[in-house]
């Protein structure tokens, strides 16, 4: 069995106002070229393609392969929202290990106009279309407003606690030229921001941008390879009958750390899926970064004093959420950190990274949760 590694990463610039002529295809192509250059591979070496995009329709993965001029023997398309990046990584690694492909391009990105986005959230699935959209629910913000209220009541957090997380990520974004929202933010700014759906204000909701991300998964032997030490996924773990304050990551925790031979304290850099600040805390708790019910203390002792390099690109909350690219963005950032390519925001000596994905909101909260532990090999 061949060893599979992540050989390169790239991102098409995120933007609030993309230039005329920008299409989903042009973004995915741009990200692909950057990742291949980063991996030192020619497009002709690619024999596998995975893609996630809400705005690729009516095209599919095969249309994209055609337009990118790729001759392939392995192909997949993923629809798992914020969990799509890690899901595609899982399949790509297995494909290379099994010899089904030698070099897989993993792509995700979107160009969504305001109308496209409105249409996407109103018909995200049949349950949303039939039972939420008729209420004029306005997309997932209201659902995560409920979830945040539950989290506050259960664990005694106040808005400032979530604000600490937002501010910490904004500081990282200031050091990332690829982040869309980089201007400094104070707690007073955060608290004074217009409400979107109580208790969520503008800064609690990942802003929609245009962009794309890419990874190259290939057989080992490439420059500065990054290994996937462990990868675990859980889908529909609680049938949407819980409260959303736990994710399927809780089921994955033990195996994830056991396979890695490491624990939360050994993580040098973390990309935790951040559609809303509350979900960052929920996932970190699920993975054992702090004990049950200790989110407030974790914010005070770890986030506020900046003890954990978390979402070092600025995360989706500050870099922006480029549709389906949100599920790949954290992986690209982690790979850059582990390869020592994060420039101004480089975490010195970063060797091990944790990346999570979360998404697939069925009716009340996300049903897909996955995580990977990555490690620099040399």
């Amino acid at each position, binding site marked *: 069995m061949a060893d599979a590694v992540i050989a390169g990463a790239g991102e098409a610039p995120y933007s609030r106002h993309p230039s005329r002529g920008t299409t989903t295809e042009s973004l995915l192509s741009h990200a692909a070229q950057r990742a291949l250059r980063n991996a030192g591979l020619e497009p002709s070496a690619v024999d596998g393609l995975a893609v996630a995009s809400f705005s690729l329709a009516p095209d599919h993965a095969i249309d994209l392969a055609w337009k990118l001029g790729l001759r392939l023997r392995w192909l997949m398309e993923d629809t798992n929202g914020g969990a799509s990046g890690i899901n595609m990584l899982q399949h790509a690694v297995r494909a290379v290990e099994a010899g089904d492909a030698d070099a897989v391009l993993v792509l995700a990105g979107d160009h969504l106009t305001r109308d496209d986005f409105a*249409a996407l959230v*109103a018909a995200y699935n049949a349950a949303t279309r039939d039972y939420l959209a008729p209420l004029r629910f306005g997309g997932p913000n209201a659902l995560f407003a409920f979830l945040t*209220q539950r989290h506050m009541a259960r664990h005694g957090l106040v808005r400032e606690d979530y604000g600490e997380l937002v501010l910490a990520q904004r500081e990282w974004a200031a050091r990332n030229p690829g982040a869309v929202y980089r201007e400094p933010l104070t707690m007073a700014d955060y608290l004074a921001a217009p*409400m979107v759906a109580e208790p969520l204000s503008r800064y609690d909701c990942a802003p929609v941008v245009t962009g794309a991300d890419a990874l190259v998964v290939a057989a080992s032997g490439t420059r500065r390879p990054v290994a996937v030490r462990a990868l675990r996924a859980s889908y529909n773990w609680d049938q949407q009958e819980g409260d959303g304050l736990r994710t399927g990551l809780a089921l994955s925790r033990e195996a994830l750390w056991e396979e890695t031979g490491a624990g939360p304290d050994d993580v040098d850099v973390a990309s935790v899926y951040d559609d809303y600040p509350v979900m960052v805390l929920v996932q970190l708790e699920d993975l054992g970064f702090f004990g049950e019910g200790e989110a407030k203390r974790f914010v005070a002792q770890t986030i506020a004093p900046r003890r954990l390099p978390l979402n070092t690109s600025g995360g989706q909350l500050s870099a922006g959420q480029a549709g389906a690219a949100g599920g790949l963005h954290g992986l690209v950032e982690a790979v850059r950190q582990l390869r020592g390519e994060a420039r101004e925001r480089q975490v010195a000596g970063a060797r091990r990274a944790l990346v999570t994905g979360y998404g697939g909101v069925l009716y009340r909260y996300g049903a897909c949760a996955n995580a990977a532990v990555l490690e620099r090999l040399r």
Partner: protein
Amino acid sequence: MRRGLVVSVCRTCGQTLFPRRALCPACGGASWRRGRAEDGVVEEVTTVRHAVEAAGAPAVVLASVRLDAGPVIVACLEGQAGTGGRVELAAVDGAPIARPREGDSSESRVGRHRRGQ
């Protein structure tokens, strides 16, 4: 508008679900009967001030409601009710609407224990 919300009740194990499923997550059963959920308790309330699909439209008040029959649903809230307030359900085109139960002031019910669990 129709009083009560149509829910699915598993004929095999009695589990009540909303939205409906194909197979019962509790017992795997595939046979359902229609139930009607009329009452519930508000768990959270939020006002959606910036709805992407309706820019400039009036704010919408939504509530997360635990039905006495079991499931937690998302409903449009018409009238004043806070956490713990009892509401009655109705449906417009199958989508849930919650209204404070007549003679039940939500303020007096804040902190009331959940029922129907």
